[in-house]
């Protein structure tokens, strides 16, 4: 079970057709095919999904909570991106 030989994989499951894949957890496996099989056994024992993605954990680059503000701030002062920003004159329909 050496981590070197059995790297970490992140597992995403699609619960039903029409829903997006959602992160459910992680597991160790030597390669993608075994990761997929292990994910089936570990995370879908009760028919929780119709599709599974496995992604090498090392391949994921995450934003840092420390930079959360500066990183997402540019969107904060652009209220005009929301339809509620605009005043609609009385009597206008279908807008």
């Amino acid at each position: 079970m050496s981590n070197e030989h059995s790297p970490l994989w992140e597992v995403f499951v699609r619960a039903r057709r029409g829903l997006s894949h959602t992160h459910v957890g992680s597991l160790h496996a030597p390669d993608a095919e075994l990761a997929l099989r292990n994910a089936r056994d570990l995370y879908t024992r009760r028919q929780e999904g119709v599709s599974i993605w496995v992604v090498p954990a090392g391949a994921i680059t995450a934003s840092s909570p420390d930079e959360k503000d500066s990183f997402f701030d540019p969107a904060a002062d652009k209220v005009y991106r929301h339809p509620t920003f605009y005043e609609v004159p009385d009597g206008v329909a279908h807008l």
Partner: protein
Amino acid sequence: MYGNDFSAPGDAPDDMPGAGLLGEVEAAEAELRAAAARERRGGPAPDEDLAAYFTEVVDAEQKIEPRDWMPEAYRRTLIRQIAQHAHSEIIGMQPEGNWISRAPSLKRKAILLAKVQDEAGHGLYLYAAAETLGISRDELVQLLLDGKQKYSSIFNYPTLTWADVGAIGWLVDGAAIVNQVPLCRCSYGPYARAMIRVCKEESFHQRQGYEILHTLAHGTPEQQAMAQDAVDRWWYPSLAMFGPPDGDSTHSTQSMAWKIKRFSNDDLRQRFVDMCVQQAEILGLRIPDDGLRWNEERRAYDYTQPDYDELMQVIKGNGPCNRERMAHRRAAHADGAWVREAAAAYAAKRADKREKVAA
């Protein structure tokens, strides 16, 4: 079991897990979503005190996530508790695994196999949660094999008859659920989410145990006696699963303040006793406690405490099966080495082949 960290005294809670434990799990999940929805804007400001920010997040019933700053002691406490919990799931496969080949029917075999497989799954969810705290699976496994981290003392008792499988499901899994349901509200996100999943799956374990005992208790006189004997042997060790009485509990008011632990050992033990009394009546089995009686004033049952000296002895490694459980785990780990190596070699060979094709 498993998540009990043998912790601290605390105030008597008025929102203890109620009759519907599964309802409690659902409520915890709903709360988790609601808390996420009212998340405070933004992370800590560049010059903000990180410890104060951490406390603010926890006090606001928000979840701490892996990359957030956290006190080193919080991290260490969680690693110890989650690892002990994970180890318990893995070691916990042994007492019941003994009975898979001897279960009395194909149906019972299939059910028990599914339950033991669930325990393995729960162990893996929990190892994965612990790994988010910056410790590797290898290290955790090694700490167990070296005896440096513990697992629940309950698994150091033997399963002598088929009725023991029933008693484990009803009492041991029942106590585990009472312990675990509050953990669904733990302040650490990955642990809380793993526990929600575990608790939902765990409820079938308790019911299958209850069904086994109910069948035996309504069978022949011999079967009835076997069921009673199992309850007689598992009752007090199950009560001991909640840890020492609050006055003697070492781990911390701190765990309460950090919202890792929500209720004291004695509060959870009382809740468990109160639940079991009526369930035992329907089984037609006797809880082996002459001191068990309803206390109108407290609106709870008075009961005899388990032998805490025995609990400490078992924790120290002197229970009936401690050595056997660890020897079995070490042997299973060593015997599985070739499988891990073969899988790694196969993966490397296939990676090589792909490279050559690509070249």
